[in-house]
């Protein structure tokens, strides 16, 4: 399963977006997230904010799972972002801090699933493990987006430097890679992306995790936060016995008991009294099998010790059944 958690959402009528989705499916991605960028203050009275992305935007791509993600651009430390109201209507909530203070705030206190720094520009501060480690301890991942680096030479330089710094500061863990491709031409296949990651300083294993298990845990964690009880217990199935399968079980049980009886035929001949007692309460099919005379005779013709030994537990079982 390969994940690309950042495809910018434009509009319903954009012809480029279905093409990008089809291309990602062709490249081998299984899950993509359509990203809606939100700048400025979010008021709690914004119920229609998620509705811009439909539930199933690409009916042509049955193999592609589409998530809905919101990225909030943080640019004012004093502002109160109503992030809690977002998590109800989006699958993933990401933050994009623009300076060091906001990055610290995002890492330590703000409620989110993902921190997506803009790595195509030069940042005037260093990434420190002390800050980033707090976010990783809370289960928040850092995102590296590669599409801008394919398009633009200076963005590529900055990305190389920033990604290397980020990977160094996070010690290779807690990083995910996504595309942020506005055009199908900027997407790359999963293994090509892993190769790029090795260029930035991730090893093959961590690079693989950055595009498979990392995004998956982001997705699942966001889901758990949203719909489970205190982020711990999630009721997947309300219980109850499904009808069809239970009847099937009954059938298989019946056949098994018949078979077991069939195997015991020879033994039944030896311990006739016990068997007869047990058969009194058993079904007509079972009695019919027991009463077959030829098998019983065959059993008596070879009175081996082993068979007798076998017969004892069988008789006990039969008695217990009765």
């Amino acid at each position, binding site marked *: 399963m390969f994940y690309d958690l950042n495809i910018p959402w434009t509009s319903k009528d954009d012809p480029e977006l279905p*093409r990008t989705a*089809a*291309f990602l499916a*062709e*490249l081998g991605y299984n899950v993509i997230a359509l990203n809606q960028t939100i700048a400025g203050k979010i008021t709690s009275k914004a119920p229609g904010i998620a509705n811009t992305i439909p539930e199933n935007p690409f009916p*042509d791509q049955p193999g592609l799972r589409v998530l809905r993600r919101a990225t909030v651009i943080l640019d004012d430390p004093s502002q109160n972002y109503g992030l809690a109201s977002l998590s109800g209507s989006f699958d993933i909530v990401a933050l994009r801090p623009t300076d060091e203070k906001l990055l610290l705030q995002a890492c330590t206190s703000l409620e989110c699933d993902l921190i997506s720094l803009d790595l195509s520009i030069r940042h005037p501060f260093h990434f420190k493990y002390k800050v980033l480690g707090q976010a990783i301890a809370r289960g928040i991942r850092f995102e590296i987006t590669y599409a801008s680096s*394919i*398009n633009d*030479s200076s963005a*590529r330089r900055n990305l190389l430097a920033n990604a290397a710094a980020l990977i160094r500061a996070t010690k290779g863990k807690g990083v995910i890679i996504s595309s942020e491709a506005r*055009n*199908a*031409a900027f*997407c*790359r*296949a999963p*293994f*090509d*992306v892993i*190769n*790029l990651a*090795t*260029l930035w300083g991730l090893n093959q294993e961590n690079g693989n995790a950055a595009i498979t298990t990392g995004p998956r845990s982001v997705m699942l964690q966001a889901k758990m936060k949203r719909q489970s009880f205190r982020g711990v217990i999630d009721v997947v199935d309300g219980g109850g016995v499904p009808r069809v399968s239970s009847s099937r079980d009954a059938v298989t049980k019946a056949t098994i008991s018949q078979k077991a009886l069939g195997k015991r035929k020879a033994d039944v001949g030896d311990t006739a009294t016990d068997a007869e007692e047990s058969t009194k309460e058993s079904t007509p099919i079972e009695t019919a099998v027991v009463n077959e005379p030829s098998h019983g005779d065959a059993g008596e013709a070879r009175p081996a010790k082993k068979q007798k030994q076998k017969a004892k537990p069988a008789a006990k079982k039969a008695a217990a059944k009765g």
Partner: protein
Amino acid sequence: MVRVKQRYLLFTILYPAASSATSLPQSMAFCQPSPASLTRTTLAAAIRASILTNFGDWGIGQAGSFAVKYFSPATSTGILRITRPHYRTLWAALTFLRDLAGHPVVIKVVRVSGTIRKAETEAVKLAEETIRRVKREQRAIGKNKGAAVATLFAGAGGDGGQKQTEDIIDVDIEMDSDDDEE
């Protein structure tokens, strides 16, 4: 004497901006035949240029000694050979390649292999899988199977499907003998 270790990269060229209005089946929208101007030499020149822009003179010195062992414009598939320590550089240069012969492209490395034979078998498998996919789709729509496969190869230099497959086999044989000489 220690043998020189090589890596063979099997790649396919995808055309993300290809118009879907052509007669190609939908599942093949991105796997189009390459234009006639794209040959082994022009491809090598484009890759070398990409190495130069991304990795500079140092990169050319390290990874510039690759060879295009095989390229089929019909299936847009090819095999590159590079010395083992430098295959990631070459791979990254392929990833950063944006256009070939005036078309926007995405190059996907399908397989990295230590022997050319494995890369070849993978290429054949890939082509078979593509044909199977098209046939499956055509069956779902209810069209003639043969026609669909023929349209796949129609774009490459005006040759028919049969001719092109023969070409591919020819090149494969050529390649085998090439390898034995080394």
